[in-house]
């Protein structure tokens, strides 16, 4: 909950807020010169208004005291769109961005019942990795990781991509075997992933108890150097700003109440702000996938479970790599602010409740201490919860459905954040061309009825 603090009524970009503060502070000091320069800038005209964030723009805004343009705008809800996307998180915004940029489909509305990036995209631990178990999974997440690497430049927004390395610890022979398998699948697809021994773990994670005295001694790890972290809020804001600049409308506080159909075709949506007609509705929701699908009478193989996380007080750099242990059911990383982010598996039952539990706090603290006994003096700062839509094979559900015009990009479980960029690109291609990109073909809804599961349990099920 703590990560999701800004109110949806006052959406501003990261830099936008800073600019406004600067405006207030500097206005008396540089008034005359600022006003003069401001007039000059206005005379030069709207066209030269700095849209791009840059050092030059920062200086210009600082000198002139001119407010930054909001990173995205408010709109009245229109009556017709070429496509309506449900959910303004990473997936929905990335889909809208790619629709507008790659395919010229700009009459697009992204609707969110809350605020932008306020669902699971604002509650993720921001870990990205791609050394999954299945070839389909490895290919997909690898595409996404590569897109994340280029995202700051592409969106002109620093998403703080940090490929600091990702380690999945093995505490048993069985885990080591599964990791060797994963390493081979990764190598086959050009993804860097190798099994390393306890000495290498000690070198990479000095904090970890690699001794044989541990209750579950570390026998090795699957090391994935290109995995790491991304600043999740920046990804939401960056995609929103880029999509807005291309003409996409983002409607916060706009809840889809019903989806109307004629025969087996989508014709529009009913929202709390009025009716909209559209031939295409894309569900990019996490936590609400079953409820949105229910609106068109479509049953989904999904269970919604809360995923909790917690952060400690900020400290100096202790931990470089992201560390995951399936046996201990814990994930630890350190943010750029210095907080340790602690995660585990989703709560062990279906629920739409986003309340934290004492069970989680006690268990995650106990597990972290087994792994890193020296962090015992650190205090927990806060904990929060988000919803995960979990499928039977822990692979997502992407693509068309039996209801024409109703497309889904759901069921990502705990893996949605890292898949966002590739999912947006693939879903946009599907919407624009009506062809399913090869990259996502294996993740169709029909696989459950036809018994073609993409079993990702041994990789994606590890607590994170």
């Amino acid at each position, binding site marked *: 909950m703590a990560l999701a603090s800004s109110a949806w009524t006052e959406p501003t970009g990261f830099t936008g807020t800073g600019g406004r503060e600067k405006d207030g502070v500097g206005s008396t000091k540089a008034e005359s010169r600022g006003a003069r320069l401001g007039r000059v800038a206005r005379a030069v005209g709207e066209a030269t208004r700095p849209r791009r964030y840059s050092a030059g723009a920062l200086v210009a805004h600082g000198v002139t005291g001119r407010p930054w343009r909001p990173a995205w705008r408010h709109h009245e809800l229109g009556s017709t769109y070429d496509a309506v996307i449900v959910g303004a998180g990473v997936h929905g915004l990335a889909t809208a961005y790619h629709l507008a940029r790659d395919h010229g489909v700009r009459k697009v509305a992204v609707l969110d019942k809350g605020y932008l990036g306020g669902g699971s995209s604002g509650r993720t631990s921001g870990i990205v990795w791609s050394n999954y178990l299945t070839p389909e999974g490895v290919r997909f997440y690898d595409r996404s990781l590569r897109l994340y690497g280029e995202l700051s430049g592409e969106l002109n927004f620093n998403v703080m991509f940090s490929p600091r390395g990702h380690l999945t610890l093995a505490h048993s022979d069985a885990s080591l075997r599964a990791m060797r398998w994963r390493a081979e699948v990764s190598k086959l697809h050009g993804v860097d992933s190798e099994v390393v021994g306890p000495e290498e773990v000690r070198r990479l994670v000095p904090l970890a108890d690699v001794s044989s005295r541990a209750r579950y001694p570390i026998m090795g790890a699957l090391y994935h150097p290109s995995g790491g972290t991304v600043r999740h809020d920046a990804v939401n804001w960056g995609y929103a700003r880029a999509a807005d600049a291309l003409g996409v409308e983002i409607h916060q506080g706009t809840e889809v109440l019903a989806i109307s159909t004629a025969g087996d075709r989508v014709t529009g949506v009913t929202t709390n702000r009025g009716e909209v007609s559209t031939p295409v509705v894309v569900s990019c929701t996490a936590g609400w996938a079953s409820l949105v699908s229910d609106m068109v009478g479509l*049953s989904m*193989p999904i*269970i919604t479970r809360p995923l909790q996380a917690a952060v400690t007080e900020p400290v100096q750099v202790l931990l470089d790599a992201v560390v995951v242990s399936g046996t201990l059911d814990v994930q630890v990383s350190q943010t750029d602010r210095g907080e340790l982010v602690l995660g585990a598996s989703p709560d062990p*039952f*279906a629920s*739409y*409740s986003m309340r934290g*539990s004492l069970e989680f706090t006690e268990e995650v603290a106990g597990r972290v201490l087994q792994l890193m006994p020296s962090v015992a003096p650190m205090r927990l700062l806060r904990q929060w919860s988000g919803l995960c839509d979990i499928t*039977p094979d822990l692979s997502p559900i992407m693509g068309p459905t039996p209801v024409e015009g109703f497309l889904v990009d759901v069921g990502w479980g705990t893996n949605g954040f890292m898949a966002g960029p590739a999912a947006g690109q693939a879903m946009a291609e599907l919407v624009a061309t009506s062809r399913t990109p090869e990259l996502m073909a294996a993740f169709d809804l029909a696989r459950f*009825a036809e018994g073609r599961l993409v079993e990702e349990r041994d990789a994606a099920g590890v607590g994170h």
Partner: protein
Amino acid sequence: MILIPCPHCGPRNASEFAWKGEHRPRPDPARASPAEWRSYLYHRANPCGWTTEVWFHRAGCRRYVTVERHTLTNEVRRAVPAGGER
């Protein structure tokens, strides 16, 4: 904490139980088509609201219990011994 009023043991913390999922009638394995069977295996109503589900009291009486729980508030309003095949 979620309390489940086990009909055999009384109110106990949900962490004593294993959640077994929505209570759903099982199709006849001899007569169900593969598609029907897979739908039974994989598809869930997953409602946001009241639902009837099965919990196993693993750290208690080790019996199955049918529970009515609200999935948004986690309120439990009824727990009875599970009948039938489970």
